[in-house]
């Protein structure tokens, strides 16, 4: 606050190289933050809807029907609860979603080597082979999983943005990130990664769909216009309904920023990196990123000191329960819509009507997925989440209505169709092997619709 301090601060330097990417190099200078960071490895507790236990999202108490909903895509094979930053490299190496076709872009949010690779390789980074080129290179550079240099300038420890995709995404909305305030930066460092993205058709660059805004409908509009014009049409063709689907991924920043806290100027770091007293008396920003429900006395009480924490916790649970109930309803309607359209295809309904129904499925899936992929189980934006689920159900229902009309015209028995859908769902949920659930999503009544791989 005093201007003397400012001058002093400007001269301060860590003595580290500006290219430092190893967490260990920071250890002696910042032992408190380094120790705090190490706790990311210890935190292995579940909360009601999240937490840090590496277990499958397909578990019966989570989202057992995802193998149907993502059928035809890697997310139907292997998809786990996320956990601490320290595991990022381990987890990307072991996921079955990485195959020999995977590209450099997949490392973008996992390793401290990425900014240097982009600098060195230019646009070649994005499309290079993950297994053959990018991973070995990162290892040889001595990288860390999501580490100090991803958020801090090693020379000055200033917060900084290291992923160009973020800067470009904000620019598309007219926001100049170089003018960011201290408060902004406490959102922005997270918003480099905790956001929805796709790979640009041209060069596989990680791209954020923010041109029209951060709301689900804004991003959908982007995918229907600019993305298509640039050649990006879908992430995958759905194996049940043949629909071109845009997969949503962790839009934590977009959701939060449009929610009650984001709109009030509260930032990710306020809840996920609360000040904590360590080492006797010193206060640091926690570098143990986890569910704030585990640290409510630090994460929430600073602002909500007038409320009993127990009441507040109950309130969060209410918000999340309402949200998750809505999510499961919307997913269920989406499942039906896929099978109705599968039946349209096998019953010889006109291409035109099938396409019309698929448009609604695509939109319906986007609007529940953008909510399912978000990590707060509704807390980051309660009204916004529920709105997305309302839109989702409406769209899936429209697909079902178009299908019903055409199927009855073709003499299809709708009762039988409904029974067959229930049978598939039963088969999927009874399959104990999570990796095999996806196999039961199609059968002789509902044959697979995905075009054979090129």
């Amino acid at each position, binding site marked *: 606050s005093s201007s003397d301090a400012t001058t002093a601060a400007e001269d301060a330097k860590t003595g580290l190289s500006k290219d430092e990417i190893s967490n260990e190099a920071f250890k002696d200078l910042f032992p408190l933050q380094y120790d705090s960071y190490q706790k990311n490895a210890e935190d292995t507790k579940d909360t009601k809807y999240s937490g840090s236990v590496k277990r499958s999202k397909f578990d019966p108490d989570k989202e057992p029907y995802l193998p149907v909903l993502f059928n035809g895509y890697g997310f139907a094979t292997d998809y786990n609860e996320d956990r601490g930053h320290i595991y990022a490299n381990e987890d990307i190496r072991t996921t079955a979603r990485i195959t020999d076709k995977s590209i450099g872009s997949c490392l973008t949010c996992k390793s401290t080597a990425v900014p240097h690779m982009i600098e060195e390789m230019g646009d070649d980074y994005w499309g290079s082979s993950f297994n053959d080129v990018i991973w070995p290179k990162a290892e040889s550079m001595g990288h860390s999983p999501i580490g100090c240099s991803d958020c801090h300038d090693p020379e000055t420890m200033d917060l900084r943005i290291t992923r160009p995709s973020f800067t470009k995404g904000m620019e598309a909305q007219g926001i100049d990130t170089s003018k960011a305030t201290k408060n902004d930066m406490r959102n922005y460092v997270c918003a480099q990664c905790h956001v929805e993205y796709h790979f640009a058709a041209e060069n596989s660059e990680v791209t954020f769909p923010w041109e029209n805004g951060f709301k689900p409908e804004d991003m959908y509009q982007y995918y229907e216009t600019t993305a298509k014009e640039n050649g990006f049409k879908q992430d995958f063709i759905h194996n049940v309904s043949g629909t071109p689907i845009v997969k949503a991924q962790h839009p934590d920043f977009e959701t939060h920023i449009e929610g009650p806290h984001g709109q009030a100027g509260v930032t990710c770091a306020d809840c996920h990196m609360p*000040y904590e007293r360590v080492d006797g008396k010193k206060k640091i920003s926690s570098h143990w990123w986890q569910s704030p429900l585990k640290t409510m006395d630090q994460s929430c009480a600073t602002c909500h000191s007038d409320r009993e924490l127990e009441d507040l916790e109950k309130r969060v649970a209410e918000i999340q329960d309402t949200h998750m109930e809505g999510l499961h309803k919307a997913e269920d309607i989406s499942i039906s819509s896929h099978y109705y359209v599968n039946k349209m295809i096998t019953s010889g309904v006109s291409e035109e009507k099938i396409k019309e129904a698929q448009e609604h499925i695509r939109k319906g899936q986007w609007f529940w997925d953008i909510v399912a992929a978000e990590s707060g189980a509704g807390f980051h934006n309660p009204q916004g989440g529920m709105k997305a689920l309302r839109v989702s159900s409406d769209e899936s229902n429209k697909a079902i209505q178009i299908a019903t009309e055409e199927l009855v015209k073709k003499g299809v028995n709708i009762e039988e169709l409904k029974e067959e859908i229930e049978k598939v769902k039963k088969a999927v949920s009874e399959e104990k092997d999570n990796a095999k659930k996806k196999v039961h999503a199609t059968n002789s009544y509902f044959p697979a619709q995905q075009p054979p791989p090129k």
Partner: protein
Amino acid sequence: MRKMLKKLLAIDKRLLIFIGLFAGIVLSVVTVKTFAYTDSPEFCQSCHIMTSAHDTFADSTHATLACSDCHLPHDTLANKLVFKAKSGLGHVYYNTLGAEKIPNVLIATEGSTDAINQNCIDCHESTLDNVSHDAKDSCSSCHQAIPHGNGFKTEDYFKPPKSGELLENKGGTMNNG
């Protein structure tokens, strides 16, 4: 607080030194000057953990008051002294012997909230008497930000960061409250 004292009594010989030291402070209130000093914002702020409470108070509408105008009971002098000694004991204990037990977020204890509330009422009696103005358990239920509440995000947060400030603060002098 009572639990705290029990713990205190259960510890070791340092206790004696500690009590002696504190008794000294309390006794020295015979001089009016010391008494006034230990009521003042400067004294409270002398504990580094109080910085944020002080800073937020300092640019509030109540900046001309002494901390103790709110934080200590004023009904009788005896009551004030006992309360002061008790909570003072707590604060000093934390800062000398029990540092690792200091909570991450300071929250006023029930006892001190009651004292605070009575002080609000005492000062503002004249404007409160024609209206009940007592719908909630405490004045703070509505006047959430008086006098510390605007502090979590100081204006500083809404300016561009100063280069090097995190480095300078690496040991954690920031936001001590």
